């Protein structure tokens, strides 16, 4: 068991990487500096899931070169006390808006932070690409329209109105009939649980109980006992690791329900590093299932993994590919703006949002619909097997 954390070390590493990234591009033709903002929660439990997305974006920016310009990355961390903080996310977005050479932003990671950031970036006409936001109301319907002033927000992850149901379909297929649902009461957790519940009931399943316990809850024993009393044969948790997903899993095991399948969405798909779902739940994590609102089997994955490992000394996981793809899309937008002879926030934004055609990214062909959602609508499903997440199958909802 590790006792002292590696926070200081990883912060140093991040600085070193950043310095390397900047150093790499300054070596190319000096000219006007263009900066791509990177906005993620990067400490505590949040780092386990958002760190790979940041690294992916940094790698893409390091590799890119645009004639006559210097491309830089600027990373801001909006995690406070180990969890993403929407207020800090909005403040960071304001910092990016205030820095003239920032032409686009990769991020944020969590939907609640996106809700805080989009009005700010939208007002400034600053392009924003999220690798991992999955809450549908960020873009769709009246909520999405009210949130954004203009069209400046795109995302390469598909949405919880597909992710929740995909997990429901998979759970049904696994034999789940009577499910107990717990959510974290926030935008993401409740949203994905709602979508799961609707599909599960529509497919003939029974929800034997449901409630919400907010972030910061430490005692899940009463909820676990309630699930037992209700006679659940499976559990669904809507929320992220730091909301308490592994604590709930441990409480279930303590109540004698450790053998029940435990379903979650991408909120608990966060690898195996310190603070991750698997690290905290330990042996109880077996028999857990999760999803990711992204493609698992990307074209050329092996090559990407090799160069990612060479750069960061660790394996690419989670949303690393999506973070890379977001940066690729922004860089292509910048290149198009450069080709048009005028590089401003507006031309970069228009080049991405109004492109009409698909972007060739590490995820494959990605294009955006009228509200900025990706048309690559694939949900990947995973299972904990031998202390690590293993890919099981994907559900493709087509274009």
């Amino acid at each position, binding site marked *: *068991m590790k*006792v*002292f*954390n*590696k*926070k200081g070390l990883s912060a140093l590493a991040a600085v070193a990487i950043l310095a390397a990234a900047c150093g790499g591009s300054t070596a190319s033709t000096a000219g006007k500096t263009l900066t791509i903002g990177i906005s993620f929660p990067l*400490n*505590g*439990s949040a780092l*386990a899931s958002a760190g790979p997305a940041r690294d992916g974006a940094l790698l893409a920016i390091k590799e890119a070169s645009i004639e006559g310009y210097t491309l830089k990355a600027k990373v801001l961390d909006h995690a406070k*006390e*180990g969890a993403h903080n929407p207020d800090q996310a909005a403040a960071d977005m304001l910092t990016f808006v205030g820095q003239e050479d920032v032409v686009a932003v990769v991020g944020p990671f969590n939907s609640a932070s996106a809700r805080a950031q989009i009005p700010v970036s939208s007002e400034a006409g600053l392009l924003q690409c999220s690798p991992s936001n999955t809450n549908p109301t960020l873009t769709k319907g009246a909520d999405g329209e009210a949130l954004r002033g203009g069209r400046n927000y795109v995302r390469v992850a598909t949405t919880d109105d597909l992710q929740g149901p995909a997990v429901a379909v998979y759970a049904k297929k696994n034999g789940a009939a009577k499910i107990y649902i717990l959510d974290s*009461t926030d935008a993401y957790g409740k949203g994905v649980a709602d979508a799961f519940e609707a599909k599960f009931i529509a497919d003939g399943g029974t929800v034997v*109980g*449901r*409630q*919400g*316990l*907010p972030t*910061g*809850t*430490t*005692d899940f*024993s*009463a*909820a676990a*006992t*309630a699930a*037992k*009393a209700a006679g659940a044969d499976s559990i669904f948790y809507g929320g992220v*690791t*730091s909301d308490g997903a*592994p*604590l709930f899993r*441990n*409480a279930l*095991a*303590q*109540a*004698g329900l450790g053998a029940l399948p435990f379903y979650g969405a991408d909120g608990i798909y966060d690898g195996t590093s*310190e*603070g991750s779902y698997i*690290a*905290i739940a*330990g042996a109880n994590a077996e028999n857990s299932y999760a999803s990711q609102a992204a493609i698992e089997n990307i074209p050329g994955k092996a090559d990407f993994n090799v160069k990612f490992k060479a750069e960061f000394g660790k394996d690419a996981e989670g949303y690393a590919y999506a973070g890379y793809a977001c940066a690729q899309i922004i860089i292509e937008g910048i290149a198009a703006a450069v080709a048009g002879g005028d590089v401003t926030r507006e031309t970069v934004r228009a080049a991405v949002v109004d492109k009409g055609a698909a972007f060739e990214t590490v995820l494959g062909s990605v294009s955006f619909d009228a509200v900025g959602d990706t048309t690559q609508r694939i949900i990947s499903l995973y299972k904990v097997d031998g202390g690590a997440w293993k890919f099981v199958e994907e559900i493709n909802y087509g274009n």
Partner: protein
Amino acid sequence: MATASVTSSTAGRLLGNLRLPLSILAFLGLALGVLGIDQFVNAMTLGAIYALVALGYTMVYGIIELINFAHGDVFMVGSFVAMFISSSLLGNEGAITNVPMLAASVLILFALTISVMALLGALIERLAYRPLRRAPKLAPLITAIGVSFILQNVIQFFFGPTIVTVPQLVPIEWSIQVSGSRVPLLNLFVIATSVILMVALQLFISRTRTGRAMRTTSMDRDASSLMGVDINRTIMITFLIGSGLAGAAGVVHGLYYGNTTFGLGFQSGLKAFTAAVLGGIGNTAGAALGGFLIAFVEVGASAFGYGRWGGAIVFSLLVIFLVFRPTGLLGSHTGDRA
């Protein structure tokens, strides 16, 4: 006639003395009937932990009338000290099934953690509160909040802001059957530990010289001082005991939940404060009672699917008590400072 009236007043007094135990029994019976055995055990376990933390709160308030906002974080530090001792010093990784080994490990764990935390509590008192003893009330209060931040940040620096796992020494599979329900021994262990410590504390306060000194100091510090009570020593012992109990709560929290995090102190501090106020701040038996009451409210809410309202109900109770019964369930102090 005279004999009859004496008998009736004796019976009345007896009934008066029994009112509290009887109402507690009635409440427990009702809770057991409504919640069922499983949830009842959950609530008792949670209440045992809240009560241990609330005791330290209420003792410090009783003796120097300071709302020690750092106490929740002392509990949190206790849980980390227990984790460190258990996993790093004793090298535990999980459950110990050998009973003598288990007993030895748990005893060493309690002894070391309680000692370390008692010293830390005394150190905090010496450095942060004693210099301000004659200062206006607000100064030590703000200092307490400062101490709380210091403890949180020190723990965050050394152990990081993520949830940290703690070895669960008592096997969670061990259980007994009570009328068809499986009651884990771990829960019974937590409840028993807490009750033993609470009884020991009551005996200490009511039967020993130091306990008497604590009581007189809380009644009138200056008069006690004139009667030869060493005030500094008495206050320091109060902090030693209160923080030691928080350390014990930290051990119990780790054994029961198998994890801890640096943010644990904030929520549990608020809960313990509420428990202390509900029970009558300054009153040790009341604080324990308040801790159990809160646990029953929270577990009850969660048992019926309204878990998200648990916190709201608890803090509404706090407001209602502060407005309508500031002396709390058992309190005899006037509520002017609570």
